C-alpha cells in the first residue's frame, strides 16, 4: 500500500503547478477567455515544450509513456488554475482515441503533431437528441467508392471551434441506440461540407456545433474497425472520466481553501464569520466531502491503472461522487461568500461553473448512478446493455 507519487509524477505535478502559479493567475485567465479564440496558443506551445502534451503517448511516437496517475496529477493542477487550453479535448479525448484505435499510419501522422503542439483536436460525439448516451448516434456514414460520405450534426463539441482535426462518431450500420455499428472517422475541420457554429459555455470553453453535409473522407480516415468504434470510445471514456474527476478534485480543493480563508478574514458582528459554529460545521462537511471525493478519484485511478475487473463500477461511482461532493462544495462556497460569492469578479463562481460543466460531461451523476446500480444489482441501463451487445 502506497499513496505516494513517483519522483517523475511529482515533477510533472510541480511543473504544472508552477505554470499555474506564475503564468495563469485569475486575471490572465479572464483575458484569455475573453479573447477571440478563448485560448492562448502561446501557452499551448509552452505545454508542448514542457512535454505535457506527450504524457499519455507511447515512446515510439515521441511520447512520455505515462499512465492514468500521470494524467491525474496534471489534471488536478489544471483544475486548480481553471486552465481553458484544450488539454482534455486534444490530448485526452482526441489523442486517446488515436491511441486506442489508430493504426500505425494514423498514429504516426497525428500523434507527433499533437505532441509538438501544432495540431488541436476534438472528439465530436454529442448530438442534439443524445443527452448522455454516446451510443445514440444518428449521424450517418455511408461507404462510397473506397471511402465514406458523412452526414449529420454534432453539438457542443468541446474545442470544436479551434480544432484542426476532428474525430467524428457516425453510424455505419445498426439502429439509433446500438453500440455496434458506430464508426469513428478522422475529419479535417476544414474539409468540404463541414460547417461549424461556435458558442461559449459558462466555464470558458468555446464549443461548436458541427454540421456534416456530404463530407467525403477516404478509407484511411476510418479509425479502428468499421462499426466497431464503440469499444475504443468506451476505453477512452473511462480514462477521460478519471481525468475529469482529477480536474474536479483540484477545483474542490481550491474552493474549500478559498472559502476557509474568507471565513477567517470576513468579519461581521465584530468577529470573523468563521467563528460561528453554524458555519464551522458546514465547513467541516465540505472538508469531508473533499476527502471522500479524493479517495474516490484515487480509487478510480488505481482501478484503471491496474486494469481491475471492478474498474468500470468504480469509475461510475467516482463520477457520482464528484457530482455530489462538487455540488455540495461549490454551493456552500458561494453561500458562505455572501454577496461576494454572487459576483463575476470573484473566482468562486468560475470554479463552480467549471464543476457544473464537468458534471454535465460524459454523463452526470444520475446517469452514472443508474449505470452503477445496473452493474451492481442488475436491471437495465442502456449503456450497460449496449456494452454487452458490443462485446
Amino acid at each position: 500500500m502506497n499513496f505516494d507519487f513517483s519522483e517523475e509524477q511529482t515533477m510533472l505535478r510541480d511543473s504544472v503547478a508552477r505554470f499555474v502559479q506564475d503564468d495563469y493567475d485569475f486575471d490572465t485567465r479572464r483575458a484569455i477567455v475573453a479573447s477571440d479564440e478563448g485560448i492562448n496558443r502561446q501557452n499551448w506551445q509552452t505545454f508542448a515544450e514542457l512535454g505535457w502534451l506527450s504524457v499519455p503517448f507511447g515512446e515510439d511516437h515521441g511520447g512520455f509513456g505515462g499512465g492514468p496517475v500521470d494524467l491525474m496529477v496534471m489534471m488536478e493542477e489544471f483544475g486548480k488554475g481553471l486552465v481553458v487550453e484544450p488539454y482534455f479535448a486534444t490530448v485526452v479525448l482526441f489523442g486517446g482515441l488515436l491511441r486506442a484505435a489508430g493504426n500505425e499510419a494514423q498514429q504516426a501522422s497525428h500523434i507527433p503533431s499533437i505532441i509538438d503542439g501544432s495540431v488541436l483536436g476534438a472528439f465530436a460525439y454529442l448530438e442534439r437528441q443524445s443527452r448522455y448516451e454516446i451510443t445514440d448516434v444518428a449521424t450517418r456514414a455511408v461507404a462510397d467508392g473506397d471511402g465514406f460520405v458523412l452526414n449529420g450534426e454534432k453539438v457542443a463539441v468541446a474545442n470544436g471551434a479551434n480544432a484542426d482535426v476532428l474525430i467524428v462518431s457516425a453510424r455505419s450500420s445498426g439502429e439509433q441506440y446500438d453500440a455496434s455499428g458506430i464508426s469513428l472517422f478522422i475529419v479535417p475541420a476544414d474539409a468540404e461540407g463541414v460547417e461549424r457554429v461556435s458558442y461559449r459555455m459558462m466555464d470558458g470553453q468555446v464549443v461548436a456545433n458541427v454540421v456534416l453535409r456530404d463530407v467525403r473522407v477516404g478509407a484511411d480516415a476510418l479509425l479502428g474497425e468499421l462499426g466497431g468504434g464503440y469499444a475504443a470510445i468506451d476505453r477512452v471514456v473511462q480514462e477521460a472520466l478519471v481525468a475529469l474527476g482529477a480536474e474536479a478534485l483540484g477545483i474542490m480543493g481550491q474552493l474549500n481553501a478559498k472559502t476557509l480563508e474568507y471565513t477567517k478574514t470576513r468579519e461581521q458582528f465584530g468577529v470573523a464569520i468563521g467563528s460561528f459554529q453554524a458555519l464551522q460545521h458546514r465547513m467541516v462537511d465540505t472538508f469531508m466531502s473533499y476527502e471522500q471525493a479524493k479517495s474516490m478519484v484515487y480509487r478510480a485511478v488505481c482501478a484503471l491503472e491496474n486494469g481491475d475487473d471492478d474498474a468500470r463500477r468504480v469509475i461510475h461511482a467516482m463520477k457520482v461522487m464528484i457530482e455530489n461532493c462538487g455540488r455540495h462544495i461549490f454551493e456552500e462556497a458561494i453561500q458562505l461568500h455572501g454577496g461576494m460569492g454572487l459576483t463575476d469578479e470573484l473566482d468562486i463562481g468560475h470554479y463552480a461553473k467549471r464543476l457544473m460543466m464537468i458534471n454535465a460531461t460524459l454523463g452526470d451523476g444520475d446517469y452514472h448512478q443508474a449505470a452503477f446500480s445496473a452493474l451492481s444489482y442488475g436491471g437495465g441501463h442502456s449503456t450497460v446493455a449496449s456494452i454487452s451487445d458490443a462485446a
Partner: protein
Amino acid sequence: MDTSFSPEDLAFKEEVGAFFDEAFTDDLRARIKDPKAYKEAIVEWQKKLYEKGWVAPNWPVEHGGTGWTPTQNYIFDSERSARGIPNTVPFGLSMVAPVIYTFGNDEQKQRFLPRILKSEDWWCQGYSEPGSGSDLASLKTKAELDGDHYVVNGAKIWTTYAQHADWIFCLVRTSNEGKKQNGISFLLIDMHSEGIKVNPIESIDNHHSLNEVEFNNVRVPVANLIGEQDKGWTYAKALLAHERTGIADVAGSKRGIREVRQLAEREVNGGKRLIDDPLFQKRLSDVEIELMALEFTDLRVLSQVATGGAPGAESSLLKIKGTEIQQAVQTLAMMVAAHYQGVLPTDIDSDVLGNDFGMAARRSYMYGRAATVYGGSNEIQKNIIAKAVLGL
C-alpha cells in the same frame, strides 16, 4: 378546519386570472426578459396595474391600496406567479412606500407616494455596505448636518438596479453614541444629486443588476429625513415585515416544477424519456412533496395574519423553505438541460443551437443562488428562529 376558498374568493380568482391573461401580453413577457428592454417594459406593466387600481394591494386604501383581505392578496399573488408574471419592482412599491406612509410626514407622503404608485420614480435600496451585510447595524456611511442639509459620505453595495434609479432610500449613520442601532437615520436621496457615482457589478449570471453606489459630499435636504434623526433602524425593521410577504412563492415554484416536468418529457436518454427515469422521478417528487407541505405552511401563517396575529419569526421559515425549494427546482432544470446548461448568451438561433431552454435555466440557477443570501441570509433566518421561536 376548512381550507377551501369561499365563492367570493373563487369569483375574485376568476377576475384576477382573466385580467392577467388579457393584460400581460406575450410581447411584455418577452421584453421584460430582455435586459435591454427590461426597465421600460416592467414600468409599462406596472402602469397597467396602476390603471386597474391593483399596483399596490398592500397599501392602505387612502393612499391607493386595494383593501383586499389577506386571502385575496394571496390569490392575487398566486395567480400572478402561476403565470410567470414577475412581481412589481419591490424597492418603491413594497419597501420604501410603507415606510413613507407609516413614518413620513404629510409633505413627504404627498411628494413621493403618488409618483411611486404611477411608477414615475424608480427606487433602489441602499442598506448594505462592503463591511456591513448580515451585520447591517454596523453601517458606516455617514450623514453630517450642515445647516438645512445632510452631507453624505460613504459607499453602499449590492444596490439592485441603482443604474436605473431616480431615488435611493438609505440607512446612514448620524451618531456614534450608544448602541450601533441607535445612531442610524433613514434618508431619501435623489440619485441625480452631485457626488453620487454608480459602479456596475457584473453578477454570476453574467448580467448587470448589482452596483456599488459611492457618496462623495452629497448634499441632501433635511426635508428628506424620514421620522426622527437616529431612529432609522426602527423604521427599517418595521419594513422587513413587508419585505417578507409572499416570500415563499409557492405558486412560482409550482410553475417551475411544471416546466421541469414538461422539459423532462421531451428529453430522451438512450430511448428512454427522462421523466420516466426513476432517479429523476425521485428528485422531482422530493421537491414537489416539500412544496405541497410548504403551501399549507404558507396558508397557516396567512390565516394567523388574517385573524390578527402579526407574521413574526414564522416568515423566516417561509423564506428558508421557499428559497430552498426554488433552488431545488432551478437545479432540476439544469439537470434536464444537460450540457446545454452552460450556454452563454449568443446570437445563434435556438434551432441552430439545438436547445431552447439551457440559457434561461443557467441564468435562473446562477442568479437563484442569491435568494438564500439577500433579504437576510438563510443562516441569519435560522438564527432568528432559534432565538425568537425556540427561545435558544
